[in-house]
């Protein structure tokens, strides 16, 4: 599934997923285990670990997939507790809220956003490369998806 590995690559990461265990249903991708693979019925709506969906050619990852990427060597940005909540509410990350980054920032890359306990809260796009002139109050990472989506999608 190129669409998934291409997405993971945007975090400068690689994860190993057994292609034989990935199924696509209505542009949604699911990772099964061998047990589920044996039992899967034609008309299923959800199965195993939801990986994400494609819409209009764009891949939208699940939070399960993001958590898998967070287990790997990848672009990760750890934020403070105030920024954690703002990020979950859909806000962008300002430079002053960043505690650390696993790699030097490179404009245009994706980065996972982690809280200080290491939980993956979502991901965003890095807006400035390291060394580029910026103020403390400028957006450093643009929010693309955050776990607050679970609340917003049920409204």
């Amino acid at each position, binding site marked *: 599934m190129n669409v998934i590995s291409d997405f993971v690559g945007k975090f400068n990461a690689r994860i190993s997923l057994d292609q034989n265990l990935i199924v696509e249903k209505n542009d949604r991708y699911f990772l099964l*285990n061998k047990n589920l693979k044996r039992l899967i019925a034609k008309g299923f709506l959800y199965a195993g670990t939801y990986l994400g969906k494609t819409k209009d050619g764009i891949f939208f990852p699940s939070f399960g997939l993001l958590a898998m990427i967070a287990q790997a060597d990848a672009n990760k940005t750890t934020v403070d507790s105030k920024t954690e909540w703002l990020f979950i509410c859909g806000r962008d990350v300002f430079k002053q809220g960043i505690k650390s980054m696993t790699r030097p920032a490179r404009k245009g890359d994706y980065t996972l956003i982690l809280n200080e306990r290491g939980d993956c809260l979502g991901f965003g796009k890095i807006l400035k490369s390291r060394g580029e002139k910026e103020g403390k109050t400028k957006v450093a990472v643009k929010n693309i998806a955050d776990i607050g989506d679970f609340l917003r999608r049920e409204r």
Partner: protein
Amino acid sequence: MSGREFFASRYRELGWTCEPVEPRQAIRINTMNAETTEVIDRLESRGIQLETIPFVEDGFWISKSDFSVGATAEYLLGFYSIQEAAAQIPARLFAQLKHKIVLDACAAPGGKTVELADLMWNTGAIIALDIKKQRLTALANHLERCRVENVIACNADARQASHLNLKFDRILLDVPCSGNFAVDKDWFSRRTIKDVENNAKLQRGILAEAAKVLKDNGEIVYSTCSLEPEEDELSIDWAIENLNLETEKINCLGERGLTSIFGKKLDSSIGNCRRIWPGQTQGFFICKLRKRVSA
């Protein structure tokens, strides 16, 4: 026939006086995702006060919270689910869930499905059915949030479970029911005895299909949040008479199932069921059934 006095007089005849109750909000820790002690610490550091529910492991009542417990990072990370205390009981009554093939026949919105997955540590497989496609969206969100990995969810009628061509070790029947007044303030004005009878008919259809797809010696846990005996003891009495099932003793909150209802004597084994009148929890009925081994 409907209304508060009609139903209250039925409850009186069954030995319970109807009183206003307010069940407390409760959560259940998803131990596959987080350590219970860690979640408690994290929630308490946010000012949320918890009280251990004495009759379910990893369950807590919310004693105090200045904000919704459904809007914390820990909730959104799937560390816990919001689940009423009595509703946490049924999934825990199965023996040996790990590596089993389980049917959750009326699964949405998925609170008990996630609990089953948690008890199974994502091993084996759960086939989760629901007849309403829209409700499966809530189930899917719940499964994703709680990082469940062992569920296949299908839009299907539990009464057609045999179309799956599978046999199950365990079946959870948290069947559609009339509900109860403890969690619905308009319940008495909305419900009639006709609704109860219709639900009882539906429940018997689901029980019959479940008995078909259950392996010999397999287990069914049947639960409702209805107080009406037509949906509870009387349905189980019918099941053990017609479906090669027998009740099993269970050790959980609740009174013995009623064996004499409105003048009708039921099988004495119905006493193995548990009836929970509203009080510290909502009203609930639970029964564990085992399929007799075919000769």
